[in-house]
C-alpha cells in the first residue's frame, strides 16, 4: 500500500502498537527539572543518555554572562544549575552556558548533525517540529512525557492524521520562508492543522535552503499541527553530511524517505506560493496576519476586537504607518547564519532609526562565532544594533530581554501572544529582512521596493 513519509517513519519506530521509539531526546532547563525529580522519586534511571542531549537556552542572559553561577536572576540561575546537576547525575551530555556549543535547542540539534532524516525526535518544547525540515518526525511534549522518554526512550502515542500542504509556484523576490509560513497560517487558521502531522511540499519548498525549511517547519505548531516535515533531498544530505553527529557515509535508507506519489493524506491544502507577499502580523496570534502592503483589517469577532485593543491599533491603518520601538532578530524560527546574513545585507552602511532599540541574538554560540568570522557583528554594531549572546531571549522573555508595557516590537520570532515578549508588549511577527528594514526606518516597509 502506498505510504506517506509519516507512515514510513512511524512504522519504523513502533516498538509495539501505540508505543513509539524515540531516537533523539533534546532537553532544556525549563521543562525538565520536574521530570528528573520524578525519576529520582521512583528510583529510575535514564535509559539512553547516549540518545539524549541537553542545553540551556530559555533562561540564559545574552549579555555575555560566562557561566551559570554568574547568572544574576536567582530563579534562572537555579534552573540552569539544576539542569547541569541533573545532567551530571544522569550522565547526559549538556551544553550549558559557557559551552562553545550552547544555543537554542532547535538550532544546535541540526548544527551538530544529530538531527537526521528518518528519525523520531522529541523535546519539551512546542517548536520541536523545526527538526522535521530534515525529514524527521519531531514534535513537542510536556514534562510528564519528558520523564517518560528519559525512563523508557519511548512514548505512548496515538498516530496523528496526515495532512499535506502543497505550494503552487515559486516565492517572489524579497519573499522568504517566514512569509510563506505566516501566509499559510493566515489561510488555515491557528487551529487549522490540529491533530495532524503536516508534510510541506511543492517547488517553493524544494527550492528553500535547509534554514528556510526549518523556519517553515518550526511554525507548524502555530497552525495547530503536531509536527511538520519535508521530504529529505540532496539539499538535506549536503547540509547534514560532515557534521559531528553525521554518519560517515550517506545511509541508503535516507534515499527512500518520501511519500509515495499515490499516497493518500487525510487532508490536502493548496497554497499559492507565488501570490505571497512579505507578511506582518497585526494581532495577538500568528494567524492574524496581512501582507505589508495592506492595512489593519476590520475586526470580524470579539477576539479580533480584543486583539486590536491590546495592540493599540485601529482598523484601516496601513501596515506601513505602524511605528516601532524595538526590533528583535532571533529565536528558533530565525536566528541561523543565513537569517543573520540576509538581515546584515540590508543594514550594511545604514543606521538604526533613533526611535528604535534593535538587537540581534544569534541562535547558538556556533552561529555567533561564524557571524563574527564573517564580520556580520561589525555590520550590525555599526548600524546601531545590539549584538548579543545566544539563547531564546526576547522570543519569550524569560531572561532580562523583554519589552516594556505598550512598546511595539518587530520580531522574527514565532508568537505574538499577549504578554509574550513582556507584559503589555505588542509584537509583530516578520521575516529577518523585514525586521532589519523596519529597524532602519522605524516603521514597516515593503522590502521588495525598499531593498532596491
Amino acid at each position: 500500500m502506498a505510504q506517506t513519509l509519516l507512515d514510513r517513519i512511524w512504522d519504523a519506530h513502533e516498538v509495539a502498537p501505540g508505543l513509539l521509539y524515540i531516537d533523539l531526546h533534546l532537553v532544556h532547563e525549563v521543562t525538565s527539572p520536574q521530570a528528573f525529580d520524578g525519576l529520582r522519586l521512583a528510583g529510575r534511571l535514564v535509559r539512553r543518555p547516549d540518545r539524549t542531549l541537553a542545553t540551556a537556552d530559555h533562561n540564559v542572559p545574552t549579555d555575555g554572562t560566562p557561566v551559570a553561577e554568574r547568572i544574576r536572576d536567582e530563579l534562572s540561575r537555579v534552573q540552569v544549575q539544576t539542569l547541569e546537576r541533573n545532567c551530571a547525575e544522569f550522565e547526559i551530555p549538556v551544553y550549558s552556558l559557557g559551552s562553545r556549543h550552547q544555543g537554542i535547542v532547535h538550532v544546535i540539534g541540526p548544527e551538530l548533525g544529530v538531527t537526521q532524516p528518518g528519525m523520531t525526535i522529541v523535546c519539551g518544547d512546542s517548536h520541536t517540529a523545526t527538526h522535521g525540515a530534515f525529514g524527521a518526525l519531531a514534535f513537542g511534549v510536556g514534562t510528564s512525557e519528558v520523564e517518560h522518554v528519559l525512563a523508557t526512550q519511548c512514548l505512548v502515542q496515538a498516530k496523528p492524521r496526515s495532512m499535506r500542504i502543497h505550494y503552487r509556484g515559486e516565492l517572489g523576490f524579497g519573499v522568504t520562508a517566514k512569509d510563506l509560513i505566516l501566509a499559510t497560517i493566515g489561510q488555515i487558521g491557528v487551529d487549522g492543522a490540529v491533530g495532524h502531522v503536516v508534510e510541506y511540499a511543492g517547488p517553493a519548498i524544494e527550492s528553500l535552503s535547509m534554514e528556510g525549511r526549518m523556519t517553515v517547519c518550526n511554525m507548524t505548531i502555530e497552525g495547530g499541527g503536531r509536527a511538520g516535515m519535508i521530504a529529505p533531498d540532496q539539499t538535506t544530505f549536503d547540509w547534514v553530511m560532515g557534521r559531528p553527529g553525521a554518519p560517515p557515509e550517506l545511509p541508503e535508507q535516507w534515499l527512500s524517505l518520501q511519500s509515495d506519489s499515490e499516497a493518500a493524506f487525510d487532508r490536502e491544502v493548496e497554497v499559492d506560493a507565488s501570490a505571497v507577499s512579505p507578511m506582518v502580523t497585526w494581532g495577538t496570534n500568528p494567524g492574524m496576519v496581512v501582507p505589508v502592503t495592506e492595512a489593519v483589517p476590520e475586526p470580524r469577532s470579539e477576539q479580533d476586537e480584543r486583539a486590536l485593543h491590546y495592540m493599540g491599533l485601529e482598523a484601516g491603518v496601513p501596515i506601513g504607518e505602524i511605528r516601532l520601538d524595538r526590533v528583535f532578530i532571533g529565536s528558533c524560527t530565525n536566528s541561523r547564519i543565513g537569517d543573520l546574513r540576509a538581515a546584515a545585507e540590508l543594514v550594511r552602511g545604514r543606521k538604526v532609526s533613533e526611535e528604535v532599540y534593535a538587537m540581534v541574538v544569534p541562535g547558538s554560540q556556533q552561529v555567533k562565532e561564524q557571524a563574527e568570522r564573517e564580520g556580520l557583528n561589525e555590520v550590525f554594531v555599526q548600524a546601531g544594533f545590539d549584538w548579543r549572546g545566544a539563547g531564546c531571549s526576547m522570543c519569550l522573555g524569560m531572561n532580562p530581554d523583554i519589552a516594556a508595557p505598550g512598546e511595539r516590537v518587530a520580531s522574527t520570532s514565532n508568537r505574538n501572544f499577549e504578554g509574550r515578549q513582556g507584559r503589555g508588549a505588542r509584537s509583530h511577527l516578520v521575516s529577518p529582512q523585514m525586521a532589519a528594514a523596519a529597524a532602519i526606518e522605524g516603521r514597516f516597509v515593503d522590502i521588495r521596493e525598499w531593498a532596491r
Partner: protein
Amino acid sequence: MKAIETITGHVSVLDRDDVDTDQIIPKQFLKRVERTGFGEFLFYDWAKEPGWELPVNPILVAGRNFGCGSSREHAPWALEDYGFQAIVAPSFADIFRSNCTKIGLLPVELPAEACEAIARAGEAQVDLRDQEVRWPGGSAKFEIDPDVKHRLLGGLDDIGLTLQQDEAIEAYERQRQRTGPVTTAL
C-alpha cells in the same frame, strides 16, 4: 495519579477562543523547579482585568482551540492546582490535551452548542466510564482514546506500564539497522 470516574459540580466559564498557554501561566512562573503551587498564578495578567471572574469549580467550560501555543505542562498544573478536574471545550490544542491526560485533568471535547448549554446550566456531571456529560436539561456523549481512558480510570502510571514492555524495547533496539547519532560521542 488519582483515578477518575465521575466529576460532578458547578462550572466556571471562560468564553474565549484560542486561549494560549502563555495566558494560562505566563513565562515568569516557568522558572520554578517544582511541580506544585502554580494555581495562584493562573491567568495571571487576565485576572487583573476589570470584570474578570473565574470561580473555583470542578469543571471549566472553555472556548475553541483551548491551550494552544507552548508545550508547558505548567498550564495543566496551574489549572489543576487551581481546582479544576475537567475542562469541557469544542476543541483543544494537541500537546495541551495530552499534557492534561498525563496528570489526571480530564479534557472533554463537545460541540460548541453543548458547551454553551453546559455553561448556561451552571453545573454538570462528567462521566468518564460512560463517556457522557450530563447537565440539567441535557446530556452529550464524548470521544476519548480508549487507551487514555483506561489509564485515567485506573489512575495508572504511564511509565510503569511502558517499563513492563522492557523486553520489546530491548528487542527493538537490537534489531535496528541504523541506530542514529550518539550524543555522548560528539
